[in-house]
């Protein structure tokens, strides 16, 4: 593209704007390509990089550095779901008490915690802990040229770094979500029965009647979908970090921002797909 004459450009402002759009559009394509490559290499990672997967699982489950001080990933996820479980009790109990049906708080907990709160909060905690950690780690590797060094040693870097993290994210999220759901249920029950003084029999009756095991299983699928998306987004931003120490921090921030938005959208669409218009829900049995 040899531009010979530097004469006046036609519509410089429009051209500038279009160029900006083209860059954005190309970035979408670039990301999609990376995601496709990562997902395609999952089989390869399972065959060739099993040791790395185990290492990642250990690191993600227990957390590294400062995270380990406050209980690792399990501690953070447990704490966030505990506080939201109690929050459901505080807000739900008082709103229901306003219309005199606070006995139904057990039902509210079984319904709302299972369908929305537990998967969403677990996903958010996942993005903040494991996801942001992966971006920071990969970004530091990228700007100290370690990823290029991997390529030189003929290690397939996308497979070795991104696919292994996606696999271990999926594996780690399963026990993590068990903890999250149990903690949310228990803290909701504790807040309602001990703090607001509802009798445990009433709470348990409505809770057990309306706790739908099928919903719980679907929420597992929701969380696994989230884990895949979070790990893909965060490895992308870490793998493509640039611009020195500040770049790693910026990439981490941008990855968190993107993955939070993607999480909300994924939750919405998965919920719409699972529960549909009618909601697969029968109050009268």
């Amino acid at each position, binding site marked *: 593209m040899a531009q010979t004459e530097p004469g006046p450009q036609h519509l410089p402002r429009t051209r500038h704007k279009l160029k900006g759009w083209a860059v954005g559009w190309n970035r979408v394509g670039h990301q999609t390509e990376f995601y496709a490559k990562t997902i395609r290499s999952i089989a390869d990672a399972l065959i060739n990089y099993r040791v790395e997967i185990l290492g990642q699982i250990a690191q993600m489950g227990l957390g590294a550095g400062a995270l380990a001080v406050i209980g690792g990933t399990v501690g953070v996820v447990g704490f966030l779901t505990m506080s939201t479980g109690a929050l459901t009790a505080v807000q739900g109990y008082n709103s229901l008490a306003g219309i005199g049906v606070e006995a139904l708080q057990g039902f509210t907990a079984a319904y709302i915690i299972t369908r929305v709160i537990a998967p969403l909060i677990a996903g958010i905690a996942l993005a903040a802990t494991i996801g942001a950690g992966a971006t920071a780690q990969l970004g530091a590797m990228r700007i100290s040229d370690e990823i290029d060094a991997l390529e030189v040693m003929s290690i397939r870097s996308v497979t070795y770094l991104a696919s292994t993290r996606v696999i271990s994210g999926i594996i780690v999220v399963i026990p993590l979500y068990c903890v999250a759901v149990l903690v949310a249920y228990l803290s909701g029950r504790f807040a309602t029965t001990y703090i607001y003084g509802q009798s445990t029999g009433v709470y348990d009756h409505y809770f057990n009647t309306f706790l739908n095991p099928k919903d719980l299983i679907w929420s597992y699928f929701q969380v696994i979908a989230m884990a895949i998306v979070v790990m893909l987004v965060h490895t992308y931003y870490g793998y493509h970090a640039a611009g*020195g120490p500040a770049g790693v*921090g910026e990439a981490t921030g941008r990855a968190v921002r993107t993955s939070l938005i993607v999480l909300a959208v994924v939750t919405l669409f998965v919920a719409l797909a699972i529960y549909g218009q009618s909601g697969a829900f029968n109050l009268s049995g």
Partner: protein
Amino acid sequence: MEGSTRVGTRERARAILSSEGVAAKPVRGVGSFLAMALDTFALMFKPPFAWREFLLVTWFVARVSILPTLLLSIPFVVLATFIINILIMEFGAADFSGSATALASVTQIGPIVTVLVVAGAGATAMCADLGARTIREELDAMRVLGINPIQALVVPRVLAATLVALMLESLVSGAGLAGGFFFSVFIQHVTPGAFAAGLPLLVGLPELIIALIKASLFGLAAGLIACFKGISVGGGPAGVGIAVNETVVYSFVALFLINLLATAVGVKATM
């Protein structure tokens, strides 16, 4: 033999408990965080106030947060409206979907989305920026020039985060109500008039004021955590990334705790 082991144990215990030791590390972190917070509050009222920095940072934080706020609050409210509408349609009370949407979006989703955006977008960007300055030793240079970095950089940032969080809360509530309206009316076929009439049924001025106070508290806490992590970065390139990661985790934890306590207090106050 016996004596030497006892000395060894005692030395090890002293090493663990000493200021350099493992056990003291988190405590020292909390201590220096509190010290910085106190410095910030004290210097907030001491002239000169860094107006230019305050405006620039406010603009910067607002710019990185507005789009994520809109993109987050709409799916959140639509999800909540969807789940709640299923429930109240079962009761045959679809006309009240407006009050349920208002309750969900003003009292809970508003603050939660503000938390996520302030911590995930605003605080990370601030921490990355300050961390990069710390790594490049700009803060030390300021100290050499006789400028207190807490007064020049931290105070305007903390105030900017508070102000932006306050404004975001109103944006989230507005966007949430609009999203809930469109979803209820056009997809779930609720009567628009009934939806609008139901809006102020459960949510009034006290709830709105509490939501705004909550949002300001979030902004304050997230700003303090981000600045603390930013100015105490160490360890080169990897350090900034780790600091940003810690900012996200710590501010989520702190903000969820504040949300729980503020909701409990607020519910008691408005009853």
